[in-house]
């Protein structure tokens, strides 16, 4: 800061241009506020540049590539010779997708009067924010601020990433080659998604998970379907196993692991991916100068409107306690913007859907059976298998099931979970049903189009009521 500096005055400063930050900035622009959006890298954040979009592009590519092996069964004869995958070409394509989306966000910001500043922001006080813009230092004075700086992968010191052998998810998605062997530390959703994608592309993948099972955040019977597929893809899954040490030598990484079952063992791979957690980006923001409080884990507690302990400073997305999901960040961002503009908005729904792009996909909303029982509900639940759905068989996707969880007394829907093809899209029906406080009859009595995968909801709902058509109903 220099003496006599002139601060640029604006209504709102949004720090961070990820899916939460840019949504907030655009909404503020729509509502007539003057907004400065500060982003130190590129608009779109982790989601667009290093997370959701690139990883789903890779997962899609891997899925298409993998399908080639199954086309024979469908009567499609490929020309002789084996299909190959050229990762540099994929990188080019991925970059074009990301660039197109970046451009779109940039355009939308401009169209809504959002001033985008590239630089690193720090709070100087509760209403002044300094931005280092590559040599220059600018100061912004604002009436309100939104912190949307997101999170980054957590890498423990003994697994220091080097960008070449020990990688984080960002490094992994920037590779130009498919590693011959790949060890993944962490069997959560990122580890399993990327692990399965690389397995489909030809890597020998070993998953090392410290918990008793992969995808420990989902219900066990859902993750079981993924485990089955992982084995069919030739992946090695080590559960209840901890990595103690990592050594790079001769172009390989050797991980020393321990487990009760196998004792100490070594796993050697060409590359190691570390996906064991994320930490919020709150450390370098100067929150103390702004008087914004954090919890002991570095997250910023917020109200349902996104407000921090400083009423005029808001925080959204991964820097707030809760699941690190782009759709949650976007919702929080829009709500914070609207509250700043005087609208009575609130993030008041407990229904945050989740989507995991494994093989098969898992998605869900609301409570699992165990959670509902823990909450004191008497639960009624039923599943309907994909293999009993005509469309699923017609597209050769017979693995998985849909599950509907209901309060036995009122028949209100408590949770809807699905594992199988296109689960990520199918969960939309579940989110809407729960938000509308639907009863299981509402789903069962709704005509679903045939032949579609969406019929799995219809039949699962009917199964709860004891009268599904395409399976034998269990006695009531």
């Amino acid at each position, binding site marked *: 800061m220099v003496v006599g500096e002139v601060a640029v005055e604006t209504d709102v400063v949004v720090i961070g241009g990820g899916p939460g930050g840019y949504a907030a900035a655009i909404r503020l622009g729509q509502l007539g506020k003057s907004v400065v959006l500060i982003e130190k890298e590129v608009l779109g954040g982790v989601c667009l540049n290093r997370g959701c979009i690139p990883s789903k592009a890779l997962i899609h590519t891997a899925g298409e590539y993998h399908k080639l092996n199954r086309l024979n069964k469908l009567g499609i004869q490929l020309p002789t010779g084996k299909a190959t995958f050229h990762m540099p070409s994929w990188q080019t394509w991925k970059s074009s997708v990301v660039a197109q989306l970046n451009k779109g966000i940039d355009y939308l910001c401009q169209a809504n009067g959002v001033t985008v500043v590239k630089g690193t922001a720090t709070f100087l006080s509760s209403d002044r924010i300094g931005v280092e813009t590559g040599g220059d230092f600018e100061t912004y004075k604002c009436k309100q601020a939104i912190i949307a700086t997101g999170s980054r992968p957590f890498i423990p010191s003994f697994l220091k990433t080097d960008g070449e052998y020990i990688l984080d998810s960002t490094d992994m998605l920037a590779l130009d080659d498919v590693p011959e062997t790949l060890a993944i530390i962490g069997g959560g959703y990122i580890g399993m998604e990327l692990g399965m994608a690389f397995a489909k592309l030809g890597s020998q993948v070993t998953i090392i998970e410290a918990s008793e099972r992969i995808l420990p*955040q989902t219900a066990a019977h859902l993750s079981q379907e993924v485990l089955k597929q992982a084995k069919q893809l030739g992946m090695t899954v080590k559960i209840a196993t901890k990595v103690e040490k990592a050594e790079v030598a001769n172009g390989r990484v050797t991980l020393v692991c321990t487990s009760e079952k196998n004792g100490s063992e070594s796993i050697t791979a060409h590359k190691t991916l570390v996906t064991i957690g994320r*930490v919020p980006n709150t450390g370098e923001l100067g929150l103390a100068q702004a008087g914004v*409080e954090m919890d002991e884990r570095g997250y910023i507690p917020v109200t349902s409107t996104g407000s921090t302990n400083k009423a005029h400073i808001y925080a959204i997305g991964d820097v707030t306690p809760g699941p690190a999901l782009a759709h949650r960040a976007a919702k929080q961002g829009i709500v914070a913007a609207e509250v700043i503009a005087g609208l009575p908005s609130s993030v008041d729904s407990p229904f945050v859907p989740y989507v995991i792009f494994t093989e098969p996909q898992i998605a869900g909303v609301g*409570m699992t059976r165990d*959670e509902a029982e823990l*909450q004191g509900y008497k639960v009624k639940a039923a599943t309907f298998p994909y293999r009993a759905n005509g469309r699923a068989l017609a597209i050769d996707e017979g693995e998985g099931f849909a599950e509907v969880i209901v309060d036995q007394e009122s028949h209100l829907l408590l949770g809807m979970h699905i594992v199988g093809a296109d689960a990520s899209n199918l969960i939309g029906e579940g989110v809407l049903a729960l938000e509308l406080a639907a009863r299981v009859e509402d789903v069962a009595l709704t005509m679903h189009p045939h032949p579609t995968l969406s019929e799995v909801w219809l039949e699962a709902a009917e199964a709860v009521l004891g009268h599904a058509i395409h399976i034998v109903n269990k006695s009531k």
Partner: protein
Amino acid sequence: MVEFKLPDVGEGMHEGEIVKVLVRTGESVQQDQPLLEVQTDKVNAELSAPVTGIIRDIFIAEGEIVEVGTTLLVIDAGTEVEVKTETKHPEKVVNPDKTVHFTPARADHRRSLATPYVRQLAREMKLDIELVTGTGAAGRVTEEDLRQFANRLQKSAPAKFPTSATGNERLLEASTAAIETEPIVQSKTGTATRAATSSQGGIERLPLKGIRKKIAEHMVKSVTIIPHVTSVDELEMDQLRALRETLRPHAEKRNIKLTFLPFFIKALVIALKEFPTLNASIDERTNEILLKRFYHIGIATDTPEGLIVPVIKDADHKSIFQLAEEIDQLARLAREGKLTMEHITGGTFTISNVGPIGGLQATPIINHPEVAIISLHKMEKRWVVREDEGVIRWMMNLSLSFDHRLIDGVTAVRFTNRIKELLEDPNLLFAEMV
């Protein structure tokens, strides 16, 4: 988490008005620490924390009328949470696989059922949807439920409506209509909520709530059920005045403020024993007359909040001085708003003493389910004829309203005659004492 609900602090009360909220969200409270002041059926009550903890949510605002059983606030009875200001960058790992719940458990599974649109509408209308009773399928809160809830609130909330100084109805209607089109919040749902106040004003609309509302309801009930008849008589007070003057120094020695009321109560109780139908009630459900062999006399008392009737229990067992002492205590408690349900219930007959203020006669409304009420009026010197001569006497009118279902006019007049006899010659009071 402990949900603190509005308890039934009275005898079968249905609702109460939140007079004061003494705590704020995030505040630590000790068990038994006062949280709220609630005004119910003629009683102000202080509600205390059932547990030690932190106030997590407050669902009500001052002035709001809430039903018994409504959750007023939530107390986190767990350990106190300390929010520390950042001192250094925390690098603690958070493994999403362990800590992130993709399906956040519904911490409040009693969350009211409503669509996102209705929730948004509730926010725009500044209503707490959790307080609205849903009439939709499975108890869903509908748009209509919100509107009806808002209407009920509006009726009980203060609102100033502008009008001209003449206050004629046409102007009032026109200005009210103008207000109804004035939005107060920007709307996401396109449904603007309406302004409750305006900057111009001439007529002030006050809510009919709290004690006043209860009085209103009670009065309507009384006159609706009871066929009232009022008879008026006049009493000569000279002897009673003389007696009071004689006794006053004795009372003062004992720090007792001796008014006329204890004498009236004494005379009343004697008369009630002789005319049992006046110390009775009618059970409308069973068509039975309940003759009460106890004498709990209500004294209508003027307070800043309105008319309250504390009750002197077993008045027939108390001396003039004891009655005087108790009247003084109850009047003080009433004025300070400290009466409890115990103080104001169980009366068998009511005396309304408007004498100190003035007025010649009235048609007092019976305190249902009692069957009669006496109103005492201004004491003044009047010309009266005694033994064919005009003389000046201290006179006072007495109005008796009685329930004509149970009491005939003749009985009523005989009853007042007896009171008159006892008060005009107070020696008789002593003769009748038990």
